[in-house]
């Protein structure tokens, strides 16, 4: 079977892989590179558990052929934290009890991260619409919305106190 060599950046580190041409980014990340924080859900781009950031924008890694990431930046949940220091969104998910089984959490946080970067002062309705493509079968979403709102408001406070 024909294989392609692909060089890309994963969470700030240069990675070089060889993969069959029909392999998706999801399987490269999980099976070849051990990035199991990326979850394999529906495989059709609907559930959002395999969300990663491609050049900063959320994508379903199950719908991206590995060849497409050559020369690009891929960020998984692991890429948001700094060493052992969790990202404020991760912190907020813990504080608000926004994770139950945890399967949707990586995708949920990455979607929220990209959303808050573009919309720093969202309403709860904005947050609900932003995560509409990430399914959670445990929480009923309320605590997830709480966590994202808390992270947004903490970031707002920080910006104000700096200014």
């Amino acid at each position: 079977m024909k294989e392609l060599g692909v060089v890309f950046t994963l969470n700030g580190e240069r990675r070089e892989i060889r993969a069959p041409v029909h392999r998706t980014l999801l399987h490269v990340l999980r099976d070849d590179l051990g990035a199991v924080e990326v979850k394999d859900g529906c495989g059709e781009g609907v559930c959002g558990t395999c969300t990663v950031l491609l050049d900063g924008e959320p994508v379903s890694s199950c719908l991206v052929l590995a060849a497409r990431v050559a020369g690009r930046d891929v960020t998984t949940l692991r890429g948001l934290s700094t060493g052992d220091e969790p990202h404020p969104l991760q912190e907020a998910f813990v504080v608000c009890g926004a994770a139950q089984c945890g399967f949707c959490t990586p995708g949920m946080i990455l979607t929220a991260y990209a959303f808050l970067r573009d919309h720093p002062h969202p309403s709860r309705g904005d947050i609900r619409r932003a995560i509409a493509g990430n399914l959670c079968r445990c929480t009923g979403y309320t605590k997830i919305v709480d966590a994202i709102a808390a992270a947004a408001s903490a970031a707002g406070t920080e910006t104000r106190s700096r200014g």
Partner: protein
Amino acid sequence: MPAVPFEYHMPRTLTEALDVLHAHGGDAKPLAGGQSLIPMLTLRLVRPAVVVDLHPLEELRTVRRDNGILEIGALVRHRALERGEGALGACPLLAQAASLIGNVRVRTLGTIGGSLAHADPAAELPAVVRALDGTLVLRGLAGERVVPAQDFFVGILTTALQPGELLAAVRLPVLGARVGSAVEEFSRRAGDFAIVAAVAVVELDTLGRVARARVALAGVGPTPRRLSGVERAVVGEEPTLETFRQLLSGRPLEIEPDNDIHASAAFRTHLARVLTARALARAATAAAGRAAGS
């Protein structure tokens, strides 16, 4: 992952892409954003021998506005439409329609050309192009063909594109000062394809009555449908939701809705009336706003 292997090409130029497509004819499938094709490969609904990845073709990513025509390259992404980036802001209908597509991840990678060439009967963008009487620019080794939207959409997932041809761009008219537009749709869950979507474009006369209207529906037949009878009937009317509701009530529509697992034909017909009235009213409000603002 796509379980069935294929031969993969990533051409660097449009000519190279057309060469590969021409060489493999019906065995080759062009890959744009991949948000329909990759799941179809995974589910083995399609099994092309050859996939031609258009990703590097920057020439298909350009947007130009010229003499009241907006030309949008096939690889322009839904996110760019949704954000009204650059010249795309001249067509607010695109932003409205794109914001309804799938989820944010689909919009990050999905492209206008991919959606139009895929021609899902429930998709928003084909109905938008049909409502605006847009034209599609098709490129093949033999040259360019410009096809009106009404001839481009042929059937379910079927277009006028021939093997070896690519959709290069879509051309849409920029709407005038007294013209407004709107999209209304109903889906059971956020991110689902619409059961029915209605796109309306309304032009008001100086007295604030309907001078011209265009309506296209998705989800009520194999291709996007124009409601020419409704378009004629609303001319001269006061553009209120109540007027449009009354005009549509009980009126036979030029649609062929199917009974399927998503909805009955009767429910789709009901949605067609309700959503058309709402879209017309919102388009008229937008037109009045634009007239007042100019």
